[in-house]
């Protein structure tokens, strides 16, 4: 299983541990992630200021690079996924829009043909690897670990690009269950918006939405919230202290990438998975997992 790997800009900064754990886990999972040469930003929040064509043109250069590699794109960020998948579908289906955007990127030396698919890593784990193969790789089952699976918005909506049901997604639940974890009741929050896109412009709104999610996890008795997007992760983890202050509630909920959880189950060390880079301490979870026996 070979993909053109599009990591997205957060890997250099706030999403560092997502990158570390993705690369480490992919190796164990048998996924070959080939670097996309000189990939550019997906333009996450670009469309309001230059119209949608800039966003599409930024995707087009990346999509063309993947086409030149002859591989489908694999991304780990919900926002990158949403932007790239939207554009790929549009280019594959709409010849005139493709021509228009190809004209905008004519001086880059790249042109989109409209042949690649865009995938999210969670979807690849669940459908390309599959639960049975994943189960065979499990070295220690997470018996007794209570996890809240958080899918977020942009890999589920709108329907054209959804990897799962928009209202009742279960992709992450399925993966965590294969790993032997106890999935806490979290249906009300798993696809709720964390507000990360308005974090800088409307901080009060973003904090309120994220707080609801973390409170939901805490009330459900979760040991950690499991994420699949560096922007959701940043919001829930990085801003957690601020939420505690604003809403005068002790939270202290570890926010852990699903790749870190998978890595632990496959027998990788917390260091190999960047688990000290998460802002809210993950020590308790790591200690618990490390106390679990390896299967023989």
């Amino acid at each position, binding site marked *: 299983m070979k993909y053109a790997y599009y990591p997205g800009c957060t890997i250099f900064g706030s999403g*560092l541990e997502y990158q570390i754990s993705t690369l480490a886990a992919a190796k164990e999972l048998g996924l070959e992630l080939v670097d996309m040469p000189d990939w550019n930003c997906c333009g996450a929040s670009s469309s*309001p200021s230059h119209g*949608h064509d800039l966003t599409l043109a930024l995707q087009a250069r990346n999509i063309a690079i993947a086409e030149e590699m002859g591989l489908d794109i694999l991304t780990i960020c919900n926002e990158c996924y949403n932007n790239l998948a939207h554009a790929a579908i549009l280019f594959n289906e709409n010849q005139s829009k493709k021509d228009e955007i190809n004209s905008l990127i004519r001086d880059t030396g790249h042109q989109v043909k409209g042949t690649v698919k865009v995938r999210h890593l969670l979807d690849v784990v669940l459908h390309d690897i599959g639960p049975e193969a994943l189960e065979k790789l499990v070295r220690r089952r997470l018996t007794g670990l209570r996890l809240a699976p958080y899918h977020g918005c942009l890999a589920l909506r709108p329907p054209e690009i959804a990897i799962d049901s928009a209202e009742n997604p279960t992709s992450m639940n399925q993966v965590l269950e294969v790993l032997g974890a106890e999935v806490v009741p979290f249906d009300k929050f798993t696809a709720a918006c964390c507000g990360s896109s308005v974090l800088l412009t*409307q901080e*009060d709104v973003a904090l309120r939405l994220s707080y609801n999610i973390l409170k939901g996890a805490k009330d459900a008795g979760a040991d950690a919230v499991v994420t699949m997007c560096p922007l959701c992760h940043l919001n829930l983890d990085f801003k957690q202290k601020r939420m505690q202050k604003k809403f005068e509630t002790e939270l202290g909920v570890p926010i852990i990438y699903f790749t870190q959880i998978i890595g632990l189950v496959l027998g990788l060390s917390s260091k190999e998975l960047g688990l000290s880079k998460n802002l809210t301490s993950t020590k308790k979870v790591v200690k618990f997992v490390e106390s679990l026996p390896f299967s023989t």
Partner: protein
Amino acid sequence: MAVSVQKTDVVRLDQCDPNFIREVEEAGGVNVQACYQCGTCTGGCPTVFAMDYTPRQIIRMVHLGMKDEVLSSMSIWVCSSCYTCQTRCPRGVHITDVMSALKSISIREGRTPANPKGPVFYKTFVDIVEAYGRMWELELSLKFTNKAEPEIPNKLAMLLRDAPLGLAMFTKGKLPLAPHKILNIGQIRSIYENIRAVEGEK
């Protein structure tokens, strides 16, 4: 929350712009005319508590051509682009895309927004991508704070408030002090130039 614009419940037909709906469609607002005002969008909107007009009202105001009211609303900047409304709309209205289109029309026309931080954020974002081909979080947050808080005491207060978080990120190696610029930055700049040329023709 401070909402700077007087909310209206009167429709002044003489001040409505019949071309507005076309403009919104051209900027990406697919099927906006198909709305039958059921309110499903509003019912599921996670940020409606901070809006001055609900998503359903915004769509109706677009129909009526209430351009000034819509573009000076808080709602368009509060929307977090979660796509819940667009996914649920029984009429296939691309409501999230309408909200984005409204932001872009507001910025293009240089309107005074109800939330001045909105345009500052989006412009800062695209400028950084033009400069490096990739996002650089440190510059985004510093430039944003600098421009979004024109008063010096507020600027300093914000920087001071954010400093401990920044330091925590830095010590974990998550706050690089230089951008990870792409090699062929000229390619990205050419895209921006071509976009500007097309925008200029319109």
